């Protein structure tokens, strides 16, 4: 189905979610007006692969995009971990995003807290959070194209992806394990050298990847051999071209801390 059709059907989702939630016997004391946006996917990439200018550069991108969308009154952080380097300790993505609840552009809840977002109990993990193709929207309320959207043999090249905004770009940089924490093995790179590297890498995206790489999750929960939103597999490198080869362009999740 086309993105346009998905967007058109987007409003239906709220209704569906609403009725399903009612069935799940959720409390009915929700306020009538939509919740302000406290979660989004960056609508545009920084463009230098895994070099985001460090976590500070990524946070600034979140803040800039949020401000342009009228949500600059919150403090925004990128959902990114960093690994221990040069005497500096690791930083866990989950420790950077406040306590929730978080809502998307349309006011739909993404998760009510850190435990729901990450599946901190096995029941929560099996249920999963509400990061889905139809709810993981950009700060402009757009759906991020995912698996099998407008497929083209060339859609794994940056030359194509940069000129075809409807091609699959579902890989979100996180640098994180499934529980939202940093990789502690200093011998592997899962953060494009703490978001400063645009090196080529090995090209390998499965198994015990060595070389420049970033762990990514899938915003549409489709592909990668699993449905993980934050830790599906490593990229094959950190250049813009390398990210595109596995259907990413260097987008990431932004959360309002307050």
């Amino acid at each position, binding site marked *: 189905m086309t993105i346009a059709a*998905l967007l058109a059907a987007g409003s*239906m989702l709220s209704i569906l979610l609403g*009725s399903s939630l009612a069935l799940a016997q959720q409390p009915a004391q929700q306020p009538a007006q939509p919740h302000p946006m406290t979660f989004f996917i960056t609508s545009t990439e920084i463009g230098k692969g895994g070099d985001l200018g460090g976590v500070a550069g990524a946070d600034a991108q979140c803040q800039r995009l949020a401000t342009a969308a009228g949500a600059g009154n919150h403090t925004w952080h990128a959902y990114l971990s960093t690994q221990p380097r040069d005497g500096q300790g690791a930083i866990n993505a989950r420790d950077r995003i406040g306590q929730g609840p978080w809502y998307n552009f349309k006011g739909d809840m993404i998760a009510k807290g850190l435990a729901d977002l990450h599946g901190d109990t096995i029941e929560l993990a099996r*249920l999963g959070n*509400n990061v889905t193709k139809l709810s993981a929207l950009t700060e402009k309320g757009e759906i991020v194209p995912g698996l099998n959207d407008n497929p083209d043999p060339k859609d794994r090249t940056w030359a194509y992806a940069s000129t075809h905004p409807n091609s699959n770009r579902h890989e979100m940089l996180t640098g994180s394990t499934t529980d939202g924490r940093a990789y502690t093995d200093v011998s592997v790179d899962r953060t494009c050298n703490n978001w400063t590297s645009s090196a080529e890498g090995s090209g390998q995206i499965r*198994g015990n990847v060595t070389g420049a790489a970033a762990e990514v999750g899938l915003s549409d929960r489709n592909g990668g*051999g*699993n449905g993980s939103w934050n830790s*599906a597999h490593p990229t094959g490198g950190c250049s813009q071209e390398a990210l595109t080869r596995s259907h990413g362009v260097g987008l990431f999740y932004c959360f309002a801390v307050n």
Partner: protein
Amino acid sequence: MTRTPWIVAACALPMLLASSFAHAQAPGPQPFPMSFFVTSVGIGKGGDLGGLAGADAHCQRLAAAVGGGNKIWHAYLSTQARPGQPAINARDRIGQGPWHNSKKLPIAADLAELNGDTIELARLGSNLFKQSALNENGELINGAGDTPNMHDMLTGSQTDGRAYADSADHTCNNWTSSGAGSAQVGHSDRIGAGNTSWNSAHPTRGCSQEALVSTGGAGLFYCFAGN
């Protein structure tokens, strides 16, 4: 470790291709590749599937129509305990895996991956999502945003694939009611109800066909071959 099934599947692809090629040269019996599908159509009487036996027969009939009749197919459905009848868990009815869809893509390597038996497996999830949860004809199932939405899959199960133990109805009276009661459903596209569960997202409003349709269902369910 958790990625092993995918890697195994990836490694298996050339072997599959190679074996197909070999058979092209020397025709002979070849294992039917599909061991998982979503029913392309429901039975049409809401939550009354004619019991587990009726649902299994539906799986078998649909599979046979596409050449998979030599396998034993079971519906992924639980039933609740009744006087003289113990509960049956959906996960205990479908063999050990691995399971593949009609396009030979892996759905899950085993029961642990399918049902998320460890917290890491549960967080990762299996390979069952909208683009892989195909019907026996290899077609996508309408999901949230499609018209009509048909993503509610009858399961009668908890998130771990087991039957409910309480006294409430979660199985349309063990798949015999098309009126009163309710059934637990999962989402084949893993969208809706504020979670991404494939097998235990929310209860239905009732057991009539209309009640199933009203929340985005059509009385469809998952079928697995255990052999």
